[in-house]
């Protein structure tokens, strides 16, 4: 691991200035919002959690784990026992962050009576066997060798809360860069600089998170100076305002994988020739131009473009309708009819579906687009249907595989279940050497490239808008990584 990325970027001209209040607009969850970091679900939740709390580690721009509250980590030979040393940090009430707090937090997350989101990520840890070794050292005992254990420490929602944490919504205490001032669910949260922050006190005096669910409202508020930071803008909005000098547009590349999911266990996609034909049907440029309004890059049917371990040596796929037709013919799937499930659950879904429908029509495949409810879309498509639109935020490639592509994966949307593939994953997890591990990952990705169920056609930019006086906004960090929505390094010029 290493420290934070120190290199200056486009948004951070000049020396940081202390002071001021930054208002940041996020889409939120309404009156049901909470400040409990372990319940964090939406981007707004994460941004607030991140201001108040810390994790032991977090993801860098390439989704590799970077130490945060953990100063360093060390494993034994077999990779199933990890010693994590904490740095000297204090909670907002002045008490030091101790190994006990860490274990308490993890145990809270893993509480079988609760259903915190990070519970699945912490699954490799045997918490009963894990121990505090002194105030600032935790020894984690794992259920199996896990080479990528630091990823667990950086997992989504794995925040450290003090052992005797009280009411999260009224008096939350964390070790993060900001301390609590006020919170109205669904409306706003105000935090103030924590002077004793271990990573250096933030430049801002105060940060206010406001909720504005409608994109145009966020843009308008930003344009009129009601907020200085607007999260999640449309590509078209970005195009309208980019380079106009009114506001700054920040594009976080490779933030959201865009895909179609083929269920590999049922017709017609149980035939890998059909899957390949579909890979070849997609005109990725058109999809990116149409569905993402050009704000993104084409994908190569592999997750994690630009991330650690990404197999970038594989040739970029392009549309080849003739070959697709031939493959379909071979598979006896001429005049194929498929239903494509989509929903307004994520930007670009319905658009991508209709574009792909037209592309498939050229290859003689009839796609029937079915728009489903957005509230239950993800669970509807997990086991149901044959073809659906899919999207994923940034996560390490390892996490993508373990969550979605193993026999016992919980969200195996492509129903990809292969013992040999599982074995490769285990092998990677037990491989200490990084380059050897990379080779194993490459083999797995090659397999997915030729016959996987994910037709990954693009990676969408995550677009932010900031007022012109905002400096220090990291522009390289995909959404969900450490430097995304990180306000302790931001200042107002």
């Amino acid at each position, binding site marked *: 691991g290493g420290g934070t990325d120190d290199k200056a970027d486009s948004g951070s001209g000049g020396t940081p200035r202390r002071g001021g209040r930054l208002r940041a607009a996020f889409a939120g969850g309404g*009156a*049901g919002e909470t400040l409990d970091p372990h319940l964090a679900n939406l981007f707004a939740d994460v941004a607030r959690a991140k201001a108040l709390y810390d994790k032991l580690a977090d993801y860098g721009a390439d989704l590799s784990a970077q130490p945060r509250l953990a100063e360093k980590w060390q494993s034994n030979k077999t990779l199933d026992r990890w010693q994590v040393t904490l740095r000297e940090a204090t909670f907002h009430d002045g008490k030091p962050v101790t190994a006990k707090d860490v274990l308490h937090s993890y145990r809270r997350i893993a509480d079988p009576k609760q259903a915190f989101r990070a519970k699945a990520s912490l699954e490799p840890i045997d918490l009963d066997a894990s121990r505090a070794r002194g105030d600032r050292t935790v020894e984690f005992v794992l259920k199996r060798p896990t080479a990528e254990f630091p990823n667990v420490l950086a997992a989504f929602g794995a925040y450290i809360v003090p052992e005797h944490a009280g009411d999260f919504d009224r008096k939350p205490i964390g070790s993060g860069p900001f301390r609590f001032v006020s919170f109205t669910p669904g409306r706003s949260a105000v935090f103030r600089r924590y002077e004793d922050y271990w990573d250096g006190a933030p430049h801002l005096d105060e940060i206010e998170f406001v909720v*504005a669910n*409608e994109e145009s409202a966020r843009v308008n508020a930003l344009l009129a100076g009601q907020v200085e930071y607007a999260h999640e803008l449309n590509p078209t909005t970005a195009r309208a305002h980019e380079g106009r000098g009114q506001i700054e547009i920040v594009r976080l590349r490779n933030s959201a994988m865009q895909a179609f999911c083929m269920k590999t266990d049922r017709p017609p996609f149980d035939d890998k020739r059909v899957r390949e034909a579909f890979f070849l049907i997609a005109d990725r440029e058109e999809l990116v131009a149409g569905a993402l309004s050009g704000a993104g890059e084409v994908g190569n049917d592999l997750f994690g473009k630009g991330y650690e371990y990404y197999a970038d040596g594989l040739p970029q796929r392009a549309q080849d309708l003739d070959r697709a037709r031939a493959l379909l013919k071979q598979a006896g799937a001429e005049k194929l009819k498929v239903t494509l499930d989509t929903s307004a659950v994520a930007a670009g879904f319905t658009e991508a579906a209709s574009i792909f429908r037209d592309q498939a029509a050229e290859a003689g495949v009839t796609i029937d687009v079915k728009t489903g*409810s957005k509230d*239950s879309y993800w*669970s509807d498509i997990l086991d149901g249907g044959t073809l659906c639109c899919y999207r994923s935020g940034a996560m390490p490639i390892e996490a993508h595989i373990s969550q979605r592509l193993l026999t016992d994966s919980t969200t195996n949307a492509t129903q990809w279940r292969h013992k040999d593939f599982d074995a490769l994953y285990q092998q990677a997890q037990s491989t200490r050497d990084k380059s050897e591990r990379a080779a194993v990952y490459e083999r797995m990705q090659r397999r997915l490239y030729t016959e996987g169920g994910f037709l990954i056609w693009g990676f969408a930019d995550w677009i932010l808008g900031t007022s012109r006086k905002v400096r220090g906004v990291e522009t390289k960090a995909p959404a969900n990584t450490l430097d995304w929505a990180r306000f302790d390094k931001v200042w107002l010029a």
Partner: protein
Amino acid sequence: MKTAPRGTSSGGPGGLRSFVARRLTLGLVQTAAVVLLVFALTEALPGDAAVALAGDQPDPARIASIREAMDLDRPAHERLADWAAGLPRGDFGTSLTSGRPVAEYIAGGFGPSLLLAALTLALLVPLGFGLGVLAARHEGRLIDRLVSSVTLAVYAVPEFALGVLLVSVFALKLAWLPPTAVGYGTDLIGHPAVLVLPVLVLLARPVCSLSRLVRAGMVDALASPYAAHARRYGVPGARVHYAHALPNALAPAAQQLARTIDWLLCGVIVVEALFVIPGLGTVLLNAVAERDVPVVQGLAVVFGVLTVVLNLAADVVAYRLTPRAGVAA
């Protein structure tokens, strides 16, 4: 054989009182029906709070444990009964997602909604009736055509487009008004400028529907012999219009007004989103998306009661204005 005279619904205060009483009793039944129906609908929607909460991590084991934690594994009728049992005590239950009392949700959303509704209404009533009367007075002439086409055109422009247009002109170009209520929290009265644009957008549609109905009724009323009689006796124009003709044109408009208030209090989702005003519409939208059944239920009670009361008010107006109804054979 003597039976008591069977009076039903003729005028007089006694008639009105029993009418209101009966309707209020029926209103209780109606509210119960609304609650049941809403409950059935939310239950029938695919997915529940657990699925909604799981979002794009629909791990079945996790969903199952969320379900258990939220008591969702209990049969629907038990949950409904439990929730209903609290009602008499004024307890609307607690939210599934946050565990906070539902009453808090409703109270939080009601303030802004009420404020917006009151302001809109204060402008809508004079404007809607005034324009309707104006158009009717000049029926077929330029003013009528002008009033009609402008209100209709504004009506036909989608709310969001109108909102965006107003925001870009008055808030962004001219910078006279703030574009959203972001950051003002609940204190909207303290910043009246914030309310100008939302109220304008909210006015756009009801002004048209109200004034069109008023116009329609007024054209007939103004052409009636009694209006002519009042005019020929030198009753001042405004009095003829507003005191003589308008009452006869009012009943449909009163219904429309009731619907509008209903909508203003519970359904101004687009405006709330566009101007970031956290009213009841937003609360409902979120609650439905999160399948937060107790919150949806609580809102259903509010909607049910509101609708009953508003409909009753509109019907009382109609009852008063058509005193002959129910007397004729």
